[in-house]
């Protein structure tokens, strides 16, 4: 009797896992496999309209990398710069929210999440208007004579600015959570044990916020390096990132194998970065 109830219970557990696994299979592993297969296809004619056949054409990869490597470099550079600035901006904001804002903490949190209520595309387009050469911002900066190219739009600066703006909340939220989690009494205890304000920060707050920094930088860097909207809307012809190349290969040129190979390469590089990064930080520090 007991045995049947137990095996029944195990059966129920497996049954409950089915939707999750099904989801993972149909929406992750299956598309991923399909992408991998596509990336190795060979063309049947000279133009993409002729179609592609399943093959093991690894030259798709070498060709993709040889031709488009500068776009990878640019994408990772932009993403890295944006991530650094996001961290520099997010840390004081999150710190303030966690330690100083008190009753305004959650109001601030709502304000930080509020932009998500408008679409990503719309918000980036709004920046296009704000930064346009006819706009007040550029007009004023030109009046001061501080813009080397006399414009902001269609510069790398605009793209990075867009990336910072769009991904800042992804840095703030995990940082805020890890800072907010810090027991405030630890700071009292540190003060009781002769730590000055500076030491309290560097010996207690900073090390305890490292998990937040790690998840924040990952959540910012990965989507930023694959992004194409910011470069598309805010950048010029020489500011294209790898995301733009993939987008045009897929949508405009319909060179699916090439686009898939580019995507797969991007994914692989990001995974290597992630591995090196986490190994460098060390999981011990992550508590």
């Amino acid at each position, binding site marked *: 009797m007991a045995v049947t109830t137990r095996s029944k219970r195990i059966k129920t557990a497996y049954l409950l896992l089915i939707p999750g696994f099904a989801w993972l299979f149909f929406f992750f592993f299956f598309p991923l496999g399909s992408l991998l297969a596509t990336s190795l296809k060979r063309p049947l004619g000279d133009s993409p309209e002729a179609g592609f056949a399943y093959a093991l054409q690894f030259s798709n990869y070498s060709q993709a990398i040889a031709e488009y490597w500068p776009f990878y470099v640019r994408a990772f550079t932009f993403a890295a710069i944006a991530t650094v600035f996001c961290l520099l901006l997010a840390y004081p904001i999150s710190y303030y929210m966690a330690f100083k804002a008190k009753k305004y903490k959650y109001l601030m949190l709502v304000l930080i999440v509020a932009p998500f209520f408008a679409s990503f595309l719309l918000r980036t387009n709004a920046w296009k208007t704000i930064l346009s050469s006819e706009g007040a911002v550029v007009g004023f900066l030109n009046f001061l004579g501080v813009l080397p190219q006399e414009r902001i739009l269609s510069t790398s600066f605009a793209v990075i600015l867009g990336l910072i703006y769009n991904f800042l909340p992804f840095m703030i939220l995990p940082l805020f959570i890890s800072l907010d989690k810090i027991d405030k009494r630890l700071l*009292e*205890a540190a003060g*009781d044990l*002769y730590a000055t304000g500076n030491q309290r920060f560097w010996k*207690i707050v900073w090390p305890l916020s490292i998990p937040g920094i790690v998840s924040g930088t990952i959540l910012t860097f990965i989507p930023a390096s694959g992004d194409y909207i910011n470069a598309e809307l805010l950048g010029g012809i020489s500011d294209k990132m790898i995301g733009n190349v993939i987008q045009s290969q897929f949508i405009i040129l319909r060179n699916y194998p090439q686009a898939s190979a580019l995507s797969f390469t991007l994914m692989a590089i990001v995974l290597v970065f992630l591995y090196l990064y986490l190994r460098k930080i060390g999981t011990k520090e992550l508590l």
Partner: protein
Amino acid sequence: MPKNHTVQDLYLKNLTKRYDDFTAVNDLTLTIPAGSFFALLGPSGCGKTTTLRMVAGLEEPTSGEILIGEENIVPLPPYKRPVNTVFQSYALFPHLTIYENVAFGLRRRGIKDIDKTVKDMLALVELTPMAERKPTQLSGGQQQRVAVARALINKPDVLLLDEPLGALDLKLRRQMQLELKWIQKDVGTTFVHVTHDQEEAMTMADTVAVMNEGRIEQMGSPVEIYENPKTTFVANFLGQSNLFSGTVKGIDGELLAVDVNGVTLYVPKSKTNITSGKIVVGVRPEKIKVVDIDTPGLPKNQIIGKISDNAFVGVSTQYVVESPWGQELSAFEQNVDPNDLGYKGNEVVLAWEPRNSFALDPDEDLTAGIEPELVSN
């Protein structure tokens, strides 16, 4: 850890802490002798933790002085005071090893060659094998000892302990009470221990100060304040008491005769300044004998009542007896010989020696200090 480094008295002088419309600590004056184990005992919200935090420098007094020896430490920031704190729930640094937690204070002061000091301290609290672990890998009692070691290593004049055993279970708490007491004897530092647990305060402290509503109600050795409470609050908060409102009838040798609803109770004259008029007589439940009506040779104080409830708790039986005037009285009977009085409704005599009575001011609230939610935890 060198023994007997010179420690000095801690002296609180007219110390007051007022929040907007609430006085947490009210004109507190108190001397805590160097090297003593001092307990500040009181219910939550009585101002004991606020007092402690003012000594630590985590709260600023509204007025008054805190002196260590001759020096007023109120103007000093926490890190300049010769005081360290064992925090409630310990506040150990979760990202540092036990060794680094203990070394923290020494490192912040830039002291060199700390290895031996830290290792000696870890040995004192018997945590040497745990040095490289993180706090979360330790049991509650071990974490507690780390918190003590981390504070003591700085050789403070005064060690403040804020409900340090509150998070431990009963058995471990008993053990830690003795361990802390032993550590205190060993290092000779003044310990100021804040607690709401009267048993803990009495077990550990040389001197207990019972605090209520921002004031000290009574201060003295555990025996002194238990046997001779001076206020109804102390009588009820520290252990249990039966309190009787009565009127002084006269003097009978060394005893004061008090009429309580027609029953005469006696209390030593020496225990009160009251010689006439209204008075409150009290007695602890364990001083009372519960016996059959016709038992000969009973002590002088006697009340006849009916058992309304009894509970056998092993070492004793706890009786609730209803007096003729309807007051519920509590009596604990040691389980020396099992007796058969324990039937509800039985008429019994409650009897006790006059010397075990105490007398209180009649103007006080007889129910002060009774906290139903804190019964014997």
